[in-house]
């Protein structure tokens, strides 16, 4: 029963993978993501990809239709061994390539696709040894479940929804202390009329930042008339109002304020 059930497991897996290769979306893209072009030559990867799909479907049909023959299991085993060999090869020549097993989007070849291919070898070998006894739907389902679990391509149908559900029930990142992050302060600076006036002078990224009361201060190094200077912005922390950002251009060596931008004052008038 265990052996004869594998006949159906292998048939369904091969029908699935073959079907995706022949009738799945964007086969050209999927084929290009694999390392097949290295194996069969550039420009022939789609033909090779489709041909594998046809072989998979043929073997799947032979396995699914009675009578159960030793040769069918043998053919499936040979194909599965071919998959393992291909994956090992592809991982070596182009580690970032997609396995291409179930269409694209499987991600680079990792332990999951390798163990899935090895499992297919095992299941095919078992199918080759199957007699005429009836298969057990439960064993078939269990076998398929293992294949699904090992398929990164199918994660989005079961693993991601599960994780999404968990996050919805209790978001692990909820309840962090609420603070106005520096990024919001920098954004206010960049949106402000004050920044527009001096942006061309700035030489550095944020050099220092600190808060005093309701103001966040953000300082930058600047260059003005060939001398080193500092531009400091004062940003309200409790609201997003770029128009209210104030700024000064100062020479720290002489402690002189060279220029100041206040929202209501006109620019450059002392």
């Amino acid at each position, binding site marked *: 029963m265990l052996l004869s059930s594998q006949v159906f497991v292998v048939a369904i897996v091969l029908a699935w993978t073959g079907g995706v290769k022949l009738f799945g979306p964007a086969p050209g893209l999927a084929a290009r993501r694999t390392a097949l072009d290295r194996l069969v030559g550039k420009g022939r990867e789609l033909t090779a990809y489709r041909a594998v799909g046809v072989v998979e479907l043929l073997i799947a049909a032979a396995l699914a239709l009675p009578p159960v023959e030793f040769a069918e299991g043998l053919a499936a085993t040979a194909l599965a061994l071919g998959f393992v060999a291909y994956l090992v090869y592809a991982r070596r020549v182009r580690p970032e390539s997609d396995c291409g097993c179930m269409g694209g989007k499987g991600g680079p070849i990792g332990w999951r696709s390798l163990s899935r291919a090895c499992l297919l070898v095992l299941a095919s070998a078992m199918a080759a040894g199957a007699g005429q006894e009836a298969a057990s739907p439960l064993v078939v389902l269990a076998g398929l479940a293992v294949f699904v679990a090992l398929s990164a391509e199918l994660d989005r149908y079961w693993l991601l929804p599960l994780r999404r559900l968990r996050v919805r029930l209790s978001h692990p990142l909820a309840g962090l202390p609420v603070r106005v992050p520096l990024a919001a302060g920098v954004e206010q600076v*960049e949106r402000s009329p004050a920044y527009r006036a001096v942006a061309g002078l700035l030489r550095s*990224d944020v050099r220092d930042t600190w808060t005093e009361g309701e103001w966040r201060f953000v300082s930058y190094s600047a260059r003005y008339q060939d001398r080193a200077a500092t531009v400091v912005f004062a940003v309200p922390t409790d609201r997003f109002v770029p128009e209210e950002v104030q700024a000064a251009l100062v020479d720290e060596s002489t402690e002189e304020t060279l220029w100041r931008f206040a929202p209501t004052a006109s620019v450059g008038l002392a």
Partner: protein
Amino acid sequence: MQCAWPNASNNCFDITRPDKCGKNLVRRTCGHQFTITSLCNNKAVRVKIADCGPQTDLWCGEKTCCGAKCGTNRIMDLTPAAYSAIGSLSGGRLPCTVA
């Protein structure tokens, strides 16, 4: 100084799909040069296409502004050398013109 452009080839366009965001970007292949000017400070940098990206369609409508000037949709990735010539790496994105 290098950049990635969403319409660097057919294959590239199939992945990035700027048209889905209503962006009609011309085909420019590897080696083509652009001048990128930051709308924040008017600093400009000259870059050469070396890669495909960014995936524009994932970020349709994204907007970033400096002052009153805004840029919409992700249409280019710059190397750190190129990006830092016109903006701060810690910012991650900036509005610009591409010419």
